[in-house]
């Protein structure tokens, strides 16, 4: 039964264009951001290799000029890309409400819970496709711009790939949840985009600059979503996760995390767990709303 519903959901996706249309900006932005950050991270490595950075070198305990700064480019590419699987997720349910196809969907499923479960399973698969494509685009941007000494190891890259897919899968489910709660494609997409790209960054910056709060980016949705991949880069510099060297100044740590695209982030798996919690909050609220909602 669930197999049938998953097949139906997959057909719904591939018989319309939005899934691949949204892949276009995913690729474009991931590539562009990786190119941009790749270009400036070479300078970072040059800076770290210079004598000015001796003090920092001591703190980090890594040979200078050889940092895998390519991880920063990768992380920024992937992070900007995750906005599109969120939008894709919004369409899953809110899109059905706006097109009124939700009626037939509910009439052909044993109950609303199974219809939603089938959507969740299907969108996990498509979320993973987004992850693969986005990590691919970001990787391309990275190798094109970052000098060989700054490229991550194969192990680190596989870590980014895994984390990137996890991030886009969760991002997709997060989008489904928000769309299920709010039930409006346009409203959800605009609000989420503004929140993820602007509002939250301002909040994190303001709270760091004025209130000296370093952890805010580590708990809010955008920060935790970015932290899944970003923390890998920050961790490589010893700026995130459990292996924080005691000597590393808190402000410097935050700055390095920020450069990695994950200000305030904890270890990648902590970020993933917190973002999963955000996803569950919206998903369960959306689930509850859909059990009761009148389709008139």
């Amino acid at each position, binding site marked *: *039964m669930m197999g*049938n*519903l998953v*097949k*139906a959901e997959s*057909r*719904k996706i591939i*018989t*319309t*264009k939005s899934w691949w249309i949204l892949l276009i900006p995913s690729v474009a932005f991931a590539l562009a951001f990786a190119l941009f950050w790749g270009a400036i991270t070479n300078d970072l490595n040059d800076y770290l290799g210079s004598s000015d950075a001796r003090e920092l070198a001591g703190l980090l305990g890594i040979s200078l000029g050889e940092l895998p700064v390519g991880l920063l480019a990768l992380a920024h590419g992937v992070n900007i890309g995750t906005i599109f699987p969120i939008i894709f997720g919004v369409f899953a349910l809110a899109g*059905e409400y706006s*097109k*009124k*196809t*939700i*009626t*037939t*969907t*509910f*009439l*052909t*499923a*044993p*109950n*609303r819970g199974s219809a939603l479960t089938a959507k969740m399973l299907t969108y996990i698969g498509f979320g993973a496709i987004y992850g693969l494509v986005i990590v691919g685009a970001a990787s391309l941007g990275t190798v094109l711009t970052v000098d060989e000494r700054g490229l991550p190891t194969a192990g680190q890259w596989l870590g980014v790939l895994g984390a990137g897919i996890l991030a886009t899968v969760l991002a997709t489910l997060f989008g489904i949840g928000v769309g299920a709660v709010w039930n409006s494609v346009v409203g959800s997409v605009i609000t989420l985009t503004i929140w993820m790209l602007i509002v939250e960054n301002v909040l994190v910056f303001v709270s760091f600059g004025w209130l000296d709060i370093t952890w805010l980016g580590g708990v809010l949705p955008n920060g935790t979503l970015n932290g899944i991949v970003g923390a890998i880069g920050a961790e490589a510099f010893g700026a995130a996760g459990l292996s924080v060297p005691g000597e590393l100044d808190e402000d410097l740590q935050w700055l390095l995390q920020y450069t990695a695209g994950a200000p305030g982030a904890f270890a990648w798996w902590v970020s993933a767990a917190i973002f999963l919690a955000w996803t569950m909050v919206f998903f369960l609220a959306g689930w509850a709303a859909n059990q*009761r909602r*009148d*389709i*008139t």
Partner: protein
Amino acid sequence: MHDGSGRIAVQNLTKRFGAVAAVQNLSFTVEPGSVTGFLGPNGAGKTTTLRMLLGLVTPTSGAATINGRPHHQLGNPARVVGAVLENEGFHPKRTARNHLRVYASAIGVPDRRADELLGLVGLSSAADRKAGEYSLGMRQRLALATALLGDPQVLVLDEPANGLDPEGIAWLRSFLRSFAQQGRTVLVSSHLLSEVEQTIDQVVIISAGMTRYYGPLEQLRQSQTSRVLVQPADAGELVKALQEAGFTQLEPTPDGRVAVSGATVKEIGDLAAKAGIAVYGMQEDRADLERLFFQLTAGQFSTGQAPYGQQPPPGAWAPPPGYQPPQPGHPGYQGQQGYPPPPQGYQQPQGQQQGWGGQA
């Protein structure tokens, strides 16, 4: 699991949307093997009732079941009940064939079923066009094809003739009849009795969210007395004479005649002769279902209007709360109202050929 009976049961169903009581304490059953009409004027609560039956709207109280179960307990529901609903949604960019294939896979029927049904509803040549480009009638056909995907035992249709051309209407009519003749159940809503009169055997009439009549259409037809339309030289004199003789069910007709209920042509003729009133013509007016329907459902927007005509057939009548039996008296002349205007689209019966168009 469900009992496979094909029976629809609605029990004390009530739905409130905030302050609006869309459906109030509605009860009826629909048996398999017949086509049941679900009739009521605009806003009577038909769509809301059907959507509650299909699990799309949660009742405030009461229950609506198919095969003894609420919709979410039917297992694979589309195999039990198919539905054609008002302003049903299709993704405007998805082709009709893809639309049907999506739901064919959800129900678990093979893809070829999609093409079979496109053929059945006459959309084969438009199968690869986007649903958003479809006309109203084409969308209605596609909705019917969707409803039939799971080869259901029960078919629920909300104003299915909406947008159909006469050929489509005639086709739908015979389709529904043959569907019911296979021992399946059909519940079809309409706000025009004439539209479904030739298709249905049973009828549920609601108004303002309440049941007004529920039973065989034939019984409703028989319950209606005939009237005599009299064309006298002096209507006022004739009315006076009739009233004095105890005939009080009198109404004026728009063309200046007097409609007399509860009296025979002979009685009226004798009376007119005795009173010395010239009568230029008398005509027996057969039971007119549309008028009865109209009067059963009138008063939704203006309260206090009692249903017209006879007491309804015993057993078939579900007196709604607040229902008042017809007052003996003189509604026509005193109310200066006469017959309410016929509903839109209504035509004087000419040998029973109005309705869904074409010949059945």
